[in-house]
């Protein structure tokens, strides 16, 4: 596993300390709206971003079902109330963008929103039209972050996104991949292009990115967004039947979900993890994972050893 540099470690500890000592050993407090959430700087600008965001893959694709849309809006409300900012979506996710737009309207467009979407179309020429359609679905004046989804036609789309950023119509640019695919190409793009963010899969069992992607992101000053922190729930289903380890309380974790998330966001290269959920209690639980004590290197090793044994 990649070792954290003393500097970044110190910075991380400072950031966690700033989230409030009151949350120490008291995860129930961390789940309340008062608990301050760990924020991390976006490397390219220094803008602070809460370390836990909200994904929308599958969970927000509920079509025109008003009851389900309202439930998603409640999840978004709990997310913002808990200090969350970044919501991530994609044109690939069915109705998720429209459902996010519906939720934002219901919540009177929270000003703290950090809107992260993607461009996902094989034609580079049609990229701007898709981006504009996505923007209208969200109902935002402009996106904070646009990413090239799964590197699809990345050269053409990246040109578009960088031009949008230069024109002031976009704040950040990124690329995404998932489940360890095409890491070689991701690395090459990270080295050659002026990216603000890279989005990858990383969790306590899928740690492939620790070898090269995460150190490279630190070297190049690229923020890292982590998708599939729970392997779409499969990881939690596997481990949740086991009792929490005794050391969970030491790092302020009251659930396995918090242990998994805290492991991810405690990596100094990670800017934000984006778990998706349909439940208000889960979004609060997820946000609470970004409060309290960060696991140190020894604790991270214990966390890995424990989960790998389950």
């Amino acid at each position: 596993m990649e070792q954290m540099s003393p500097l970044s470690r110190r910075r991380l500890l400072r950031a966690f300390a700033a989230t409030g000592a009151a949350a120490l050993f008291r995860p129930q407090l961390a789940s309340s709206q008062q608990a301050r959430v760990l924020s991390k700087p976006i490397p390219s600008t220094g803008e602070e971003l809460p370390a836990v965001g909200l994904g929308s893959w599958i969970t927000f694709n509920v079509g025109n079902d008003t009851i389900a849309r309202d439930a998603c809006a409640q999840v978004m409300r709990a997310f913002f109330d808990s200090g969350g900012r970044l919501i991530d979506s994609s044109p690939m996710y069915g109705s998720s963008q429209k459902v996010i737009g519906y939720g934002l309207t219901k919540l009177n467009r929270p000003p703290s929103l950090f809107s992260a979407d993607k461009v996902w179309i094989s034609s580079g020429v049609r990229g701007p039209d898709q981006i504009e359609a996505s923007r209208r679905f969200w109902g935002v004046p402009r996106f904070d972050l646009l990413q090239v989804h799964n590197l699809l036609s990345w050269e053409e789309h990246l040109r578009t996104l960088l031009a949008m950023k230069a024109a002031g119509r976009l704040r950040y640019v990124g690329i995404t991949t998932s489940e360890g695919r095409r890491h070689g190409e991701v690395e090459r793009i990270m080295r050659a292009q002026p990216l603000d963010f890279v989005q990858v899969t990383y969790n306590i069992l899928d740690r492939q990115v620790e070898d090269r992607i995460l150190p490279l992101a630190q070297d190049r000053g690229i923020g890292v967004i982590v998708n599939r922190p729970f392997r779409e729930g499969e990881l939690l289903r596997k481990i949740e039947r086991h009792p929490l380890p005794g050391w969970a309380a030491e790092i302020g974790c009251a659930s396995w979900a918090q242990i998994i998330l805290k492991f991810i966001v405690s990596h100094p290269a990670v800017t934000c993890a984006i778990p998706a959920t349909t439940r208000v209690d889960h979004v609060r639980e997820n946000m609470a994972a970004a409060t309290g004590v960060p696991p140190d290197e020894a604790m991270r090793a214990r966390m890995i050893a424990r989960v790998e044994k389950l």
Partner: protein
Amino acid sequence: MSEWWTYSLSDFLLFSPRTYYRLFELYNLAVWPWHVLAIVLGLAVLVFWLRGGAWQSRTVAVILATCWLFVAWAYLVARYDTINWAASYFAVGYAVEALLLVWTGLIRNCLSLRPGRDVAGAVGLCIFVLALFVWPLLGRLLGRPWLQTEIFGIAPDPTVVATLGVLIAADRMHWELLVVPLLWCAISGATLWAMQSPDALLAPAAALLALVLACWKTLSRLRQASPG
């Protein structure tokens, strides 16, 4: 798609089982009482199947084509498309199948059914009856509410499986008519399998049975046609 071997079926699933079945619930509420007409149409196919007559092929083809078009528009385009961007492509396939049914059964009058003619005819009739009468009960038997029931002429799977029953029972095999139903059974089966639905294999099983019987019928016909 690069590194295709790293993808699993669940990577292509865009929605949760809850959303998928809730869609049927909302759809059933929206199109009620068309279910009554759909069942009457299904019974009409059965009556024409058993009684025969000069209008059998035309009537059966028009009824099936109407059901395919209705499902294409009311379900695939108007509802399923809201959670699955591929649904509009599926709808095109359904429309093609409807056109082929009209061409074969109505215009060419080539979709004649005779009960008890051979094994394929008997199995085809059983599949049709299963799709018409048993399919609506499946969801309830598996613990889903009545409102989420899937009915011939309204929902895709029972409509497709019923059509397979008709096609393998027909006097002549029309392979061009089998393509879309077989593909749909594979797609639907894969979707339900990814959602870990216990009934995931039903439509693919019906498709496999239809495929085997279609091959058997075609080979039998070729054997009969060959000299000596």
